[in-house]
């Protein structure tokens, strides 16, 4: 289909123009865009909190906000970013939009449930925003008892309810994905012909479905204790606050893999497309996603090394945490091996993929530091931990999210983003990120604790570097926001397959028609078979 035709072709975007056609849509592509708007709002909300935190930390005295306000800032930064941005980010936006297309389906198995999932996220988000506006919550995103149940005078209930409701959004999305992958594949689309993006989302969905309900019941018990004095975790009654920590981390550690597994799926697509080679060791990369999902459920105890957990339990959890490094490293090595003798182009999505691999490696290796019993005691609750998980969540997950957004933007909107600006912003984000978070490794190792807004003056230089990096990072994040919107009107019209990629989503028009494909595709080749592509590929040199 030639892109430059004047007669307007029917696409999912012009299938209805009024608000109702969006708010009541059951089209997975439109729902993906609804999620995109929603989580972008939360990203900038959480970003605003981060800005305040970094501004405060520029000076050791802590003059900008009070301790109470600072506690609320880092709590709400965590809540907004984790539950309302990162968890939904890649699955709910890119997964929603592309998982059905990649397997050759017209939609997810349960389109109405998919729309309900979005509404649940919005309702949960409104609870959280209400809590923020009403005065905020100060427990930390982990809601440890008994502080959260008894002593905190902040908006714990509204925030926890918001997370509870948003959790069901995540559960139902995961359920929808699992059923879709099992039951909706096009003829010929066998399990081992699935793009690795789909494998990663399948593994993610397993975690969403198995882990999130445990968080839900934990929140229910927390609310019961705070509201009705039904004290399951109350030490005054002989209850155990550490039980809360076990139940919380049983979800919240695997939740990290909800954030990073889909990111790995995106990276597999990007690395293959922009080196024009099948992913080295396809099957083992596919299984490593499942392995990460499974192992991820067995490591929560490494968050409790200093919480009275027995040292023997600690040793087992430490060992199992090391085991997660194996499938993670397999992925990194296999992406790297894919590059070997590939015909590599340095388009923006690939720059993000490179950024991901480097930053994820640093985040992963420092993960081994904190999984080690002895070192963890030294760095527990310091900026070392903060830096470590930001390398995974921001350096990993957000880099991949942005990479994926650039990669699929032409398909989603039918327009190209401006390549030069995009490369520039990718570079700025990479530099800004490292300037923000690398000094935090050093700060943490030197002993600066997290969650305090005053600190000894000798830590100021590194903190000022980190704050400077955060401002660079903010510029880097604002740029795509601007040029993506600009491209909707002024971007070059995108061809159907601008990258010469192999996935089924590129075999239909940009933007796709309402039902994705004019006729159901029949799959005859493995994923990433470049001999089948007659790319209109744009040359990026």
């Amino acid at each position: 289909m030639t892109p430059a035709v004047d007669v307007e072709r029917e696409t999912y975007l012009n299938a209805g123009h009024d608000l109702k056609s969006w708010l009541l849509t059951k089209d997975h592509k439109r729902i993906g865009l609804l999620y995109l708007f929603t989580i972008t709002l939360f990203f900038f909300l959480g970003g605003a909190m981060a800005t305040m935190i970094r501004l405060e930390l520029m000076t050791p005295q802590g003059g900008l906000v009070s301790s109470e306000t600072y506690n609320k800032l880092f709590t709400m930064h965590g809540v907004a970013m984790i539950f309302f941005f990162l968890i939904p980010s890649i699955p709910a936006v890119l997964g929603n939009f592309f998982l059905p297309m990649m397997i050759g389906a017209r939609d997810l198995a349960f389109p109405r449930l998919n729309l309900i999932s979005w509404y649940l996220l919005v309702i949960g988000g409104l609870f959280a925003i209400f809590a923020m506006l009403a005065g905020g919550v100060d427990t930390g995103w982990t809601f440890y008892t008994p502080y959260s149940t008894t002593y905190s005078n902040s908006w714990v209930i509204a925030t926890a309810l918001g997370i509870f409701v948003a959790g069901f959004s995540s559960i139902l999305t995961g359920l929808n994905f699992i059923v879709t992958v099992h039951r909706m594949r096009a003829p010929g689309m066998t399990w081992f012909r699935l793009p690795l993006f789909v494998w990663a989302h399948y593994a993610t969905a397993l975690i969403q479905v198995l882990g999130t309900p445990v968080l839900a019941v934990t929140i229910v018990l927390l609310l019961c204790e705070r509201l009705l004095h039904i004290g399951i975790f109350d030490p005054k009654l002989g209850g155990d606050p550490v039980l809360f920590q076990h139940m919380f981390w049983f979800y919240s550690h695997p939740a990290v893999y909800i954030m990073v597994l889909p990111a790995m799926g995106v990276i597999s697509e990007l690395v293959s497309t922009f080196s024009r080679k099948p992913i080295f060791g396809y099957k083992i990369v596919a299984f490593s996603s499942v392995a990460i999902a499974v192992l991820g459920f067995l490591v929560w105890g490494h968050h409790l090394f200093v919480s009275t957990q027995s040292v023997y339990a600690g040793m087992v959890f430490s060992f199992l945490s090391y085991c997660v490094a194996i499938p993670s490293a397999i992925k990194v090595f296999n992406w790297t091996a894919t590059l070997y003798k590939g015909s590599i182009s340095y388009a923006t999505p690939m720059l993000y993929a490179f950024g991901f691999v480097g930053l994820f490696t640093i985040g992963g290796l420092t993960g081994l530091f904190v999984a080690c019993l002895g070192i963890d005691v030294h760095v527990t609750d310091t900026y070392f931990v903060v830096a470590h998980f930001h390398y995974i969540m921001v350096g990993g997950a957000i880099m991949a999210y942005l990479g994926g957004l650039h990669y699929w933007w032409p398909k989603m909107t039918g327009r190209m983003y401006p390549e030069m600006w995009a490369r520039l912003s990718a570079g700025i984000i990479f530099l800004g990120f490292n300037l923000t978070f690398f000094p935090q490794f050093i700060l943490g190792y030197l002993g600066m604790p997290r969650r305090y807004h005053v600190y000894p003056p000798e830590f100021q230089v590194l903190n000022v570097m980190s704050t400077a990096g955060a401002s660079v990072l903010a510029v880097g994040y604002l740029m795509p926001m601007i040029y993506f919107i600009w491209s909707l009107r002024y971007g070059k019209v995108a061809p159907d397959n601008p990258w010469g990629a192999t996935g089924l989503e590129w075999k239909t028009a940009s933007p796709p028609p309402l039902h994705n494909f004019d006729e159901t595709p029949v799959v005859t080749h493995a994923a990433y078979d470049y001999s089948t592509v007659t790319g209109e590929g744009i040359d990026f040199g």
Partner: protein
Amino acid sequence: MASHTRTETLALREQFDTEAQQKDASTLGMWIFLITEIMFFGGLFLAYTVYRRWYADIFAVTSSSLNVYIGAANTLVLLSSSLTMVLAVRAAQLGKRKALVVFLILTLLLGGVFLGVKAYEWNQKYVEHHIPGPDFHFEGVAQQGPAQLFFSLYFAMTGLHALHMVIGAGLLIVLIALAAKGRFSASYMTPVDVVGLYWHFVDIVWIFLFPLLYLIDRHLGR
């Protein structure tokens, strides 16, 4: 016959190719949902296991204050509702509209009886000051805290179970309305099947709750 084909075309949603695919997807979806429910209740069972081990003696005493006869009778009521639910599914498979409606109504009634008895039991706890909180008092144990933990678990577990029963009752009412309108046939009865799965799951949860809460001390021959 004309109405029959209309039902069929209405029933097949646009994302599916065949009715078999649609039915498979719905059933698989419900099974996965039930797995999430196992994880949801699992958190409570975990807490129960921990505290029962820690405070075994106190839990035995507090457990014996629950009326095991009422609990057993209620278990029987709930198991009967599972039977009527199975019969409803069978009636749907055979396309017997009237039998389907009757069995669904019976299931709903038995579920209602269960909830009524449960409400009576909860009220007894209120009368006996066995509701966790400032008014809590349990005769005969030195440590009031762990006794209160038992009742916290009792109310959390039976409360969430009852909430699931109420949701199930709501689903049954919808099914009854649809079945009465003749929306189900031997070829299209997935909603009956799927709600049936849910109803049995809620029953199975009770089958675990009953011995864990009521029968802790029975082997001592009280």
